[in-house]
């Protein structure tokens, strides 16, 4: 178990490292010049050269990379060009917002999608369930920026009960959360439905009923516990993806998370900031996935032995 965790963690560190290295190379290959973004349109060639020198961009790529790795090992992520501050500080300043949004979205998703999915499984193929199904798909198919703008217009302007943007109050969390959750609820509730349908038809459930377990117990204690793993995985994966920044929603709601930061960093070709963001978010995402993997072995006793279930 511990051996597995260590090996798995090692692989993940490698993944993060390779990811960051790929990004390091890619952003430098991409067109665009940090110096030009930094110095503005009127800068002369000479100015640009100076700025590039200052950023250390005149060095060969391999030297830059070596330096980057060396600094990384000492905990130095470089200085953001546009913020003129340690890149790590800038990213860490934003992380709490992203994590707050991601966590609240995932929480809302779980709280809504699981009961909804269970309800849909138990009422499978009735008219109401079909209607709910279509609604969730529709929720899944609305572009996030569209949902966002619609919700904004509705709840901040037409019926002004919620703040339109930002994070000044807890109320500010509501609309971005809902916007993100609408999509996730659709995905998760349909997954719950599928899993629950399968588990409600499983032989052990009939057997449990034959020994007098109540219908509530059958649904929640038996079918749900057995559906928990794929659902948990999906929630974990979604959460990991959200830790990378819910870019569009952050932009629409002026939410100061890493998603909008990274878009900005890309617009100014702020290499150190991009690298730091990728490193931090990739590490966070990988960590979440790792925790989900560990949670597996707690939830699914069959995995604990490290032996496959099927035959």
């Amino acid at each position, binding site marked *: 178990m511990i051996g597995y965790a260590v090996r798995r963690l090692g*692989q*993940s560190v*490698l*993944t*993060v490292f*390779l*990811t960051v290295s*790929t*990004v390091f190379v*890619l*952003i430098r*290959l*991409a*067109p*665009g010049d940090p110096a030009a973004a930094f110095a503005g349109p009127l800068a002369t060639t000479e100015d640009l050269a100076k700025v590039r020198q200052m950023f250390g961009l005149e060095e060969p790529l391999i030297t830059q990379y070596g330096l980057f790795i060396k600094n990384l090992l000492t905990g130095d992520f470089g200085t953001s060009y546009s913020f003129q501050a340690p890149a790590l500080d800038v990213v860490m300043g934003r992380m709490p917002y992203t994590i707050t949004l991601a966590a609240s979205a995932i929480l809302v998703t779980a709280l809504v999608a699981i009961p909804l999915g269970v309800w849909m499984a138990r009422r*499978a*193929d*009735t008219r109401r*369930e*079909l209607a709910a*199904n*279509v609604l969730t*798909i*529709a929720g*899944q*198919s*609305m*572009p*996030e*920026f*569209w949902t966002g*703008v*619609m919700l904004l*217009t509705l709840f901040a*302007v037409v019926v002004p009960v919620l703040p339109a943007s930002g994070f000044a109050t807890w109320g500010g969390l509501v609309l971005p959360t809902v916007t993100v959750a609408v999509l996730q609820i659709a995905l998760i509730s349909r997954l719950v439905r599928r899993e629950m349908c399968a588990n409600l038809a499983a032989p052990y459930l009939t057997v449990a009923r034959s020994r007098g377990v109540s219908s509530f117990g059958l649904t929640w204690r038996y079918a749900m516990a057995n559906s928990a793993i794929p659902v948990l995985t999906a929630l974990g*994966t979604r959460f*990991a*993806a959200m830790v*990378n*920044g819910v*870019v*569009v929603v952050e*932009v629409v709601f002026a939410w100061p998370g*890493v*998603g909008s930061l*990274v*878009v900005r960093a*890309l617009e100014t070709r702020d290499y150190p900031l*991009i690298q730091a*963001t*990728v490193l931090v*978010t*990739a*590490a966070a*995402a*990988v960590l979440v*996935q790792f925790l989900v993997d560990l949670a597996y072995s707690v939830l699914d006793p069959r995995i604990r032995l490290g032996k496959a279930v*099927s*035959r």
Partner: protein
Amino acid sequence: MTTAVTPALLAGAAVTRRRRGRKLKLWAGSVCTAIVVLPVALANLLPIPGPDQQDLGSRRLAPLTDGHLFGTDQLGRDLLARVLHGGQVSLLIGVLAVLVSGIVGILAGSAAGYFGGWVDAVVSRLLEAQLSLPLLMMLLLVVALFGASVPVITMVIALAQWPEVARIARSLVLVEREKPYVDAARMLGLRRAGVLAVHVIPNIIRRAGLVVLLLLAQAVLLESALSYLGAGPQRPFATWGRIISDGQDYVTTSWWLVTLPGLVIVLLVVGVNLVGDALYERR
């Protein structure tokens, strides 16, 4: 012959319900999809103005005025024409993207599931890496790197989507490869790659293919998100995402510019998903 199965009982029976639900989903889904896809496919034959034909005198007309079914946009272009012609690009991108991601995903996922070992390790790491990268940023970066052409956008969307397919394919293959018929084929003397290609993949392709179908909807959405963030295909292509993001400054004054293309996307996605659901449940 007596029977206790009354028509009422039969009507409420699980099978009847399921069949009815499936039929309904298939029908409703096909209709929704067809409502979107057919006009888009036939856009060039329909009696509508050209998508780029401007009439600055009739800017932002509401739907159903002056023969503009969907109204007009900021430059007086017929919105319906733009949506239909834009749909050609959006759908082309979507279809190509899911084809590519489907093929890559199924091949990579199946290989990982079937061969295990280092193949699996490499594919799994790639999957993990993809998940741990800020997706949209990477896509923006790749678009910046190679320019915003239709093939690049297609590849970029495929890049975003193949892991989903690969993950499903891998898990399906993990189950499938344990089945005795796979052993049987090996015993007959088929190579491992042959077994994978002849027996395993054909047996998972339908279920994996359904996932690909559902991804079509997401591809269209992703394209619109990219356009929204400014990385859509180069103008003058009026993709759905572009139309929506161009129109979103007018949400409150000219609702149709955003809402109608948005509804078209919703209709298509709902349609495709319903068909996918119906097919998935048939098995």
